[in-house]
Every structure is written in C-alpha cells, then in structure tokens.
C-alpha cells in the first residue's frame, strides 16, 4: 500500500489532465458560440459576459437551414425504421434455417462479407448506379443505409437468437401461430435489447455520416444534411469563426442530450457492436 500511493497520485493527475483535454474543445465550442468576434479575441476561454445569441440567429437565417435539420432527421428516422424491422426479421429467417438449409447459410456469409469491405471500393460504382437509377436523393440514401446496415445487424441478431429458447416458438407453432405471428408475438419482444443496440449503433452512424451524403446529396443545398452543411461552410466561415462554432453546436448539442439520457445503452450498444463484429 505504501508503494502504491505515489503511483496513485500520478495516475489521478494524468487522468485529470486527460479529462481536461477531452472537455477542452467542447468548452471552447460552447463559449465561443455565445460571444462576438471582438469578445473572443480578447479572451478565448472566459465565460461570455452576456448571453449573445447573434451567432445562432445568423446561422439559422440561412434560407436552407430548416432543410439541413429536416434532411438529417428524415434520413435517420426513415433508415432506422426500416432497419429496426427488416434486420431482426431477415436474421430470424437465417438463424432458424441456416443449419438445415444451404440457402440461408450462404445468405449469412454473403451479408457478413460487407463488414470487411471499405466504403472506398463502392464509392465510384455506387454514385454511378444511383445516377442511373435516379436515386441521387434522400430515398436513395435511406435505401443504401438500410442495406449497408445488414452485415453487422444480421451478425448481431443471429448471435442473439441463439439465446432465445426454441421451445417457446415451437409451442407457439403448435398453437397455430404462423411464422410472422410467432416472430412478432414472441421473438421480436424477446430480442428487444438487441434491437435497442442495433438502433443506437445505426443512429450514431447515420446521423454523423459524411462520405455517403457527400457523394449523393452534395448537388444542391436543399438536400444537405447537417455534416455536409458544416463541411461546405468551412470556407464561408474563414473570417467569422464564432459563426462556425455556433454551427458546430447544432450537431454537438443533440448528441450531448442523447448521451446524457441514454449513456448506459449507448456504451453497452457500441461495446457489443464492436466486440461482436
């Protein structure tokens, strides 16, 4: 114990420094967003002397600002709605048949393969394909996200279904339940923890994603999502960085709120998602 004490003190000091490093950019973003340029030139870190909201009104005065928020919300919500039903269902079909039936075994392997492919391989052909199919729009992005979520989702759900006793389903089958009836009445409710995990993983991915909307939605400002908007305004904000920080807050704050309420699920979900893939 005696030898451990100095080590403990050093450890605590280092941990505190790391906490400061993590909080520092968030702090700077908050205080700068509420200050005028002159005020922040005087002192970057000081608390704003008054609540200046000019940066926010300026950011929101962009005629398309409502579009960016709406696009991000619509794309995320629509993709997640599809993912939350399609993936548990198709995984159920695969999990219950892949031992007896080669079709389902092959399907499993096929879906899993996408986990390893870097998106760069698909970048050019996918853009080409979307142009040809006339889906260079929100609908296209929603379908693509739903499809790309399959690999990890099927993997996680097939693992989870192993823990659900098959006797329950067989009993339901004897009582005259159809496949879909058994799934929606028994299996889906039991798999709720995994559904939550998959929803969290994909919400974070889709809400924060940059490259796919950059390829598909960059044509006109009315189609931009929040990350694309922030990226495209990089040069516009060269002179007024207080505006830039205010615009960053629009994507940071929803995440802070989400994290504050769902922290336990988010940490569990991301750990499960990472460990199991």
């Amino acid at each position, binding site marked *: 114990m005696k030898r451990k004490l100095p080590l403990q003190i050093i450890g605590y000091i280092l941990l505190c420094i790391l906490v400061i490093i993590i909080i520092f950019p968030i702090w700077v973003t908050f205080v700068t967003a509420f200050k005028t340029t002159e005020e922040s030139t005087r002192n970057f870190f000081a608390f704003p002397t008054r609540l200046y909201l000019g940066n926010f009104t300026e950011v929101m005065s962009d005629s398309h600002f409502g579009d960016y928020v709406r696009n991000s919300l619509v794309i995320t919500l629509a993709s997640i709605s599809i993912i939350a039903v399609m993936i548990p269902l198709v995984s159920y079909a695969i999990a219950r048949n892949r031992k007896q039936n080669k079709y389902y075994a092959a399907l499993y392997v096929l879906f899993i393969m996408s986990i*390893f492919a870097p998106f760069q391989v698909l970048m*050019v052909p*996918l853009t080409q394909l979307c142009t040809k199919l006339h889906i260079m729009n929100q609908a296209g992005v929603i379908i693509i996200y739903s*499809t790309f979520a399959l690999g990890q989702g099927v993997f996680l759900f097939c693992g989870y279904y192993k823990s659900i006793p098959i006797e329950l389903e067989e009993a339901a089958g004897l009582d005259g339940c159809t496949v879909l009836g058994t799934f929606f009445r028994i299996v889906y409710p039991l798999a709720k923890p995994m559904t939550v995990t998959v929803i969290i993983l994909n919400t974070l991915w889709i809400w*924060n994603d*940059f490259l796919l909307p950059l390829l598909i939605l960059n044509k006109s400002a009315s189609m931009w999502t929040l990350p694309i908007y922030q990226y495209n305004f990089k040069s516009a904000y060269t002179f007024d*960085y207080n505006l830039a920080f205010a615009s960053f807050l629009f994507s940071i704050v929803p995440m802070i709120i989400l994290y504050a309420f769902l922290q336990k699920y988010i940490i569990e979900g991301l750990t499960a998602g990472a*460990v199991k893939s």
Partner: protein
Amino acid sequence: MGKAKKNKRERTFFLITIVPLMLYLLLFVVPVFMGINYSLTNWDGLSGKYRYIGLGNYINIFTNKRTVKSLLFTGKYTILLVLIVMVLAMLLTLALTYLVSKKLRTFYRSVFFFPAVLSLVTVGLTWNQIFYRVLPAIGEILHSDLLSKNILGSPKTAIWGILLVNIWQGTSIPFIMLLAGIQNIPADIYEAAKIDGANPFQLFCKITVPYMLPVINVAFVMVLKSGITVFDYIQAMTEGGPIQSTESASVLIYQLAFSDSKAGLATAYAVILLIIIAIVSALQMKISSKFEVGQV
C-alpha cells in the same frame, strides 16, 4: 406438423429474405464487381466510353509518385495511430481498474467515452478552428513559438495535428472495449498467481493480456481499419495539404474519382485497400488464435 403447413412455413421464411437480398445484391454485390471492372479500365468517370487497360492502373499506383506518397503516408499514419491508441486505451483501462474507486470510474468512463458519439467531420472542423485560432492565441500569451504556429500549416507537422484529433476521438471505443474485457477476467486467477509470488508486471503479461487477447484483437483490427481508410478528419482539416503532405489513400481516391476524372485509377486504388485490409485482418486473426490456443 402437416406437410402443407411446413411448406407454408418454408415459403414465408423464403419470402422474408427476398427484399433484403435484392437490395444487397443491387447496392453492394453489383457495385463491388462494377468497381473491380472499372479498375481494369481507363474510365474518366464522366463519359460513357472506356477502354480496358489490363492491370495498368495497378502498376500505375505503385509507380506514380503521388500515389506512392499517399500509400506511405497512410502506412505511417496507421502505424502511429494503432500504436498510440492501443497503448493509451490499455493505460486508461489499467488506471481505471486499479487506481480509481468504483464511483469515480463511472465518471471517467462517461467522459472518456463521450467523443465517440460525435460526428467525425464536426470534430475535425472544431479542432481545425482550435489549431487555427485558439492555440496560436494561447501561444502568444505564453510566448511559445511552438503553439503560435498552426500545426496543420506545415507539411512536416500536419500529420501530428490530424493524429491528435483522431486519437482524441478514436481512443474511446477501444478503451471501452478493453475496460469491458478486463472486467471479465475472473478475480481468483489473480489471487492464485499472487500467492505463487507473481509481481504486477508478471500478472499483466501472463494473465491480463492473454485473457484480454480476443478483445485486444477486435479493437486492434478496428483501429487499423479506421487508420487505413482515414478520410473525414483530413477532408475537414487539410484536404490533403499542405503540398499534398497529408493525402491519405482515401482522400486521394476521392480526389482522383471526383476531381481529377480518373475513376479507373481511383477504383483500382480502392481495390488495393480492400486487399490490404483483408490480408491484415486474416493475419491478425491467425496470429492471435495461435496465442489463445497457447495460453489454454
């Protein structure tokens, strides 16, 4: 179960898989083959015409100065990222497990994990402003030459700026994975080893690491993949500059495909990335499975 009923069951199961399978074939399998096809052509990405040039693009990637430079940059970046992130994640895990009380552990865990929920672009853009405005301002107050220059402004130091941001955000998930892994090690094994007179270093090498190897393994591959395909941070901060000094493979692929009208070359480069990732992942799995067998 009656035969008619069984048939109906089988039909339902089959019908369930149709839509996802069609989507997957159309939006994943077809594009992969299209990509491999393009990689063998001189297609510019715009016109309808192209000519097959065999492995010309692949040879080009290993002989062209710009692509070789970006391959070397990506390699250096990935090695540094993996090393620093893994060591840092392990140190944090050990510190939280052995130095900190349970209550504080939850607090630190929440703080260190938080960056993982933010968008990479937003994080990149935020740090870009910090490097550009905030740190030089601090440097002026402290009269420090090191801080008063924008780290992203010089070809020599830009890589470190990007790495710093990537580490700031990219350590959180490996860290949380290792933390979950270390908590799964049964405590009585440590007790037994301590009775046998093992010192903390021996405990770490002989128990902690072998037991955590599956988790370390997954975290390693994840960080590795994120390093090899790094794009968002660089696009948000330097766009490959200054003087192409931070042009990673992915950034160059994007440039070649959508600015330089060299879609054939770009897809060939992407296929090479795919092959590198596949080889490294397979190797890693093989090596670590050997170790895992060894410790049992």
